[in-house]
């Protein structure tokens, strides 16, 4: 196979990626055998592999915090979870009437009530004045609109979580990922 060398300190271009995977022991079967048999005859690739062996472990910077750190970590996260839990229970409690299934049920009941009221009290409300039930409907619609607004924040939150990894904001020069 023709060997093109990297001017920096060459490995054969055709083997570069496999040599990196070989270094990480993430290359098996035919690929592994292909790399190993090439290494026997190519000094440049052997040098490249040695370079990886000295360079890459040096990039790891580990940290071993003390037991006191972990105790404080546990205390903090427990406190944050309690706060999050209380907030979520409180939100569940106040948003209960506006959840997906009660909304149509309440709306239907109200519409029915308004229809019946209008049928049986026709003419008793001046045309320009909104009957109380309709005012309730308008208020209800406004509350559910607001709720949708807040829900859309939740949705954006989830989308952010799921899509951040796709690096939408990342550099355009990068090759785009193919989803699995």
């Amino acid at each position: 196979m023709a060997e093109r060398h990297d001017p920096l300190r060459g490995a054969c271009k055709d083997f570069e990626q496999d040599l990196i995977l070989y270094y990480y022991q993430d290359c098996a079967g035919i690929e592994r055998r292909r790399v190993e048999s090439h290494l026997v005859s190519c000094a440049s690739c052997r040098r490249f592999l040695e370079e990886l062996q000295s360079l890459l472990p040096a990039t790891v910077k580990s940290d071993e915090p003390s037991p006191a750190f972990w105790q404080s970590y546990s205390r903090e996260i427990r406190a944050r979870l309690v706060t999050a839990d209380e907030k979520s229970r409180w939100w569940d409690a106040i948003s209960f009437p506006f959840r997906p299934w009660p909304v149509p049920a309440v709306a239907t009941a109200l519409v029915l009530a308004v229809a019946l009221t209008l049928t049986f009290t026709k003419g008793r409300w001046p045309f320009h004045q909104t009957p109380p039930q309709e005012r309730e409907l308008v208020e209800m619609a406004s509350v559910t609109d607001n709720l949708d607004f807040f829900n859309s924040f939740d949705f954006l939150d989830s989308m952010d979580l799921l899509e951040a990894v796709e690096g939408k904001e990342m550099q355009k020069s990068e090759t785009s990922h193919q989803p699995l």
Partner: protein
Amino acid sequence: MVSSRPEESGDEELVTSAQRGERQAFEVLVDRYKQKAYRIAFDFTRDREEAKDLSQEAFLQAFSHLKGFDRRASFYTWFYRILVNLCLDYRRRRGRISWESLDERTEKGNGLDKIANPAPSPDQQAMGEELSRRIGAALATLPPKQRAVFLLKNHQGLSISEIATVMKAAEGTIKAHLHRAVMALRQRLTELA
């Protein structure tokens, strides 16, 4: 319901209990994965306080979204994805942070282990710190996906297929990112040498 010793329960059992509102079950999951989570966050931030905050934020996000966890992946894979997303997002939120000053802060403030030698002389220590700063700066210049793949491979020891699962990308794409990341690091560090 979690067994009488929740810390002996499996992740699935704990998730089920936590989804039913048993916060204590989730706390067991936190205890189980906090060190791994912290180390991942530390790899991305190279800063102790930031790593603590980010990993805790990931647990909080997981807790808030637990009802939406559909078990198509294991809890850890799902959580890992949240954490990595936050780590990637962290860099975007912080903008161009000074990795050199972070390194300095972490090393001086926390007495971290040094890269090259377990008991270095002052000269070796200074060289180790200098190398660490250079490496931090070189890592910071990598495009985010390359950096994430590199850290998950080189620091976390995940296989290419595990990284592909976490990052929802094809294995070929992950290999290409890793290749580019290693070559870019090699070039930067050679230039600096």
